[in-house]
């Protein structure tokens, strides 16, 4: 087993995912429609025409649509991560997962490849979304768009790893609705994607605390700071730690001898 085998497997998985993304125009459009509806409709309603109070990384007053944009980048990645987990469940039901997992490469590598594939797609989606937002007068310094890339990769990996972890628990495709209700929506709404922490504190300390410790919040903050050329160390460490934990548990979950697969085989 040499490096070529690893490369072939990685490219096979990533290439398949990217090819799927490019050829499935409906998927591409629908992935963009969701954040754009939030931006053009939801954010327009909460415009904060007189400006939001200044909080880092912003150095002056901003409109609500400027605030919500990094949160919507996070939303794209959150839904993408969950969609990847959905496709894992689908693959398992269809049997293609078995082909992948019997490949003589380490399981963690195969899962990581799957994760990188999903993250690559989500990064593409985010940049297309930001390009559209640019014409809607939501413009960050050009350097910010470069710093954004590593931040998006890390946040995408973390959210993708969470998806993998969840997919190791889900027995059937039908159970995915539960993921929407119990994971995606609470994670999204109880975060700094839509409202700044100080605003959440005004309404509920509990909500503030939940949002503060929500890994999705930290991923959004990492992305928000990067978009303005700044590095949020706390958010970086928090997101990285969450990724390592989620990934480790997901790898264990996909181990037939130890993880959740035993239970699934049993059912």
């Amino acid at each position, binding site marked *: 087993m040499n490096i070529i085998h690893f490369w072939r497997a990685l490219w096979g998985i990533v290439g398949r995912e990217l090819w799927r993304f490019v050829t499935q125009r409906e998927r591409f459009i629908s992935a963009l429609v969701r954040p754009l509806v939030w931006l053009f409709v939801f954010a327009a309603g909460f*415009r904060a*025409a*007189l*400006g939001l109070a*200044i909080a880092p990384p912003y*150095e*002056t*007053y*901003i*409109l609500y649509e400027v605030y919500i944009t990094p949160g919507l980048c996070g939303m794209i990645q959150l839904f993408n991560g969950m969609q990847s987990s959905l496709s894992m469940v689908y693959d398992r039901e269809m049997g293609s997962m078995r082909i992948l997992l019997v490949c003589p490469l380490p399981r963690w590598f195969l899962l990581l490849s799957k994760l990188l594939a999903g993250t690559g797609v989500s990064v593409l989606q985010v940049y297309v979304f930001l390009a559209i937002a640019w014409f809607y007068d939501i413009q960050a310094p050009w*350097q910010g768009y470069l*710093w954004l890339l590593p931040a998006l990769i890390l946040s995408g990996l973390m959210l993708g790893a969470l998806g993998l972890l969840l997919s190791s628990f889900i027995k059937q495709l039908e159970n995915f609705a539960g993921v929407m209700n119990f994971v995606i929506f609470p994670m999204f709404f109880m975060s700094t994607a839509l409202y700044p922490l100080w605003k959440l504190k005004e309404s509920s300390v509990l909500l503030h605390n939940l949002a503060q410790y929500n890994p999705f919040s930290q991923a959004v903050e990492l992305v928000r700071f*990067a978009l303005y*050329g*700044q*590095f949020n*160390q706390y958010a970086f460490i928090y997101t990285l730690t969450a990724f390592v934990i989620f990934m480790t548990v997901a790898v264990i979950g996909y181990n037939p001898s130890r993880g959740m697969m035993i239970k699934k085989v049993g059912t």
Partner: protein
Amino acid sequence: MFKNNIITPLLLALTVTAHAETVFVTLEKDNALAVVDPIAGKLIKTVSIGQRPRGIAISPDNKFLYVATSDDNTIKIIAADTLKEVGKLPSGEDPETFALNPAGDMLYVSNEDDSLVTVIDIAKQKVIKQIKVGVEPEGITVSPDNRWLISASETTNMLHWIDAKTNAIVENTLVDPRPRAVSFTADSQQLWMTSEMAGTLMVIDVKTKQPIKTVSFNVTGVTADKIQPVGVVIDKERQRAYIALGPANRVAVVNAQTYEVENVLLVGSRVWNLAFSPDEKRLYTTNGVSNDMSIVDLESQTVTKSVGVGSYPWGVAVKP
């Protein structure tokens, strides 16, 4: 890490190339003067100045600041380098706004409560004349050619054209309700005036002394009652003018050739007065309610930073 490694050196490089100017902001409630480094975007210090400081101007040689300390009923002369008081001018009651002539030897004060314009000889520190004007004079300016002194009466809704040599009113122009600030173009051919109550900007031809254009403002999501234009400045080339829209928290960018509103820039709450940097690459605003000033980069037409300065920032002056 990114910020420290990459952006800070870039900012430092910019700092070295940019002129190190100083911005002074009067703080009406703190009885103080804020000193700001606008390139670094930082408040350097705050200095006690007198009771309720509002209007501020710098002498043409940049050596002295004049600050109207309204509750002290005087205009203080402050050394621009040391910020020490070096004299006082007899301004009359409750001075708020005032104007220097281009030579910097005469100072004209609006005495709102007495409906007067007080003319002060700076060298002699003496009042040489008090001119009776309309009710509640507020905006005041001198044309760059030193031909006209303009006083705007808020309640009379009138501009008074005062001959700067004789200090006598020559003509009056009726304008939109509650005129606030007045400013001449560099060529002294036009006078621009803001009407707080009508929410408009009027451009007046100096030859005919009649309005040639009235500009209205519209800010998406902001009701018309919040659009209350106050400060107005026009660049030397008469390419663009900038108008503070008060509680609309915006600075309007008006094309000074076509009179079209090109943009509205979001700044702090109740933006009040405006000043250019000496090279006219930046614009500084005082935001009365949010207790800060905003810095606008005029090349990119973006607000780059808002800097906390203290309570109720009012007037702004820039020293090169």
